[in-house]
C-alpha cells in the first residue's frame, strides 16, 4: 500500500486518511449483458507495476481521486480529482 498520497486539494497525507475503492475500469453499457457486467463487477487483474485506482479522501476533502500507483514500489505517480478532471470512466 502507498503510505503517502498527495491529494490535489489537501497536500501530502498518510494513507490512513483514505479509503481504497479499486481499479479504474470502463463501465459497460447498461444493456451490455450479463457476462460484461459479471466481468466488470467481479473480475480484476492483479498487475505488477503501474495501476490506476480510485481512492476516497474520507478524512480530508471527501473527494474521489484517481491515483496511478506502482504495485511493486508503492510509489504514487499521479493523483487527480476524479470528477474535476472529467474522468470518462464512471465510478464503480
Amino acid at each position, binding site marked *: 500500500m502507498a503510505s503517502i498520497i498527495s491529494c490535489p*486539494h*489537501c*497536500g*501530502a*497525507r*498518510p494513507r*490512513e*486518511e483514505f479509503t481504497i475503492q479499486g481499479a479504474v475500469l470502463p463501465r459497460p453499457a447498461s444493456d451490455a449483458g450479463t457476462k460484461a457486467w459479471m466481468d466488470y463487477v467481479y473480475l480484476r487483474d492483479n498487475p505488477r507495476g503501474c495501476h490506476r485506482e480510485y481512492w476516497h479522501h474520507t*478524512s*480530508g*476533502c*471527501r*473527494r474521489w481521486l484517481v491515483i496511478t500507483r506502482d504495485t511493486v514500489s508503492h510509489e504514487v505517480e499521479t493523483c487527480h*480529482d476524479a*470528477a*474535476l478532471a472529467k474522468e470518462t470512466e464512471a465510478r464503480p
Partner: protein
Amino acid sequence: MSEFRIALRPALGSAVKPAPRGVAMTAMPEGHVVQVLGSPQGPDLSKMLLGKNAGASPHAVRSAGPGQWFIVGDTPLSHSEFTTIATGLKPHAAAVDQSHGRVRIRLEGAMVERTLAKGTAVDLDLRMFPVGNSTTTLLGHISVHLTRVDVAAFEIMVLRGFAESLWENLVRMNVEFA
C-alpha cells in the same frame, strides 16, 4: 408531548482545563457554525462569504475542501440571521446550520504544533500552514477541521459527539508540556 424537556448542555461542560505551561486549551463558546455547500466546479465563494458574514472575528470563513466552507462565530445565530445567510448564498451554494453539531476547541502556546503533530500528519510549519489556513484531517482517529487562527494558536472543530473524547486525547498529548 414528552414529559422530559430536551435541554442543550455544553458538550465540554464537564471538561477541566489542564494547568498548562506549553499549551492552553479552551472550550470555545458554542456560537454558530454554518456549513456552506457549493459546487466543486463552481466559483470561489470565499470573498463573497467574507464580505457579508465574517463580522468582527478574524478567519470566520474557512475553506473545507472544493466548493465547501464553514462560517463560524462566538454568538448564536437567530433564525432570521441564518435565513439571511442562506438566502444570500442562492443560487451558488446551500447553507446548513451546524451550530448544534460541531464544537470548537482553541489550542494556544509555544508547543502547540508539537502537540498536534502527535495526532495529525498535516505539515503545520508556519510557512506551509500560515495563519488563516484550514484543512480537514484526522487527529488520532477523530476527524477534525483544523484552522491556524494565530502564529501559535489553532482552532479545532469537531463533531459534538467526539468532542469530549478528543479533549481527553488532547490533554494526554499535552501531558509532556504541562
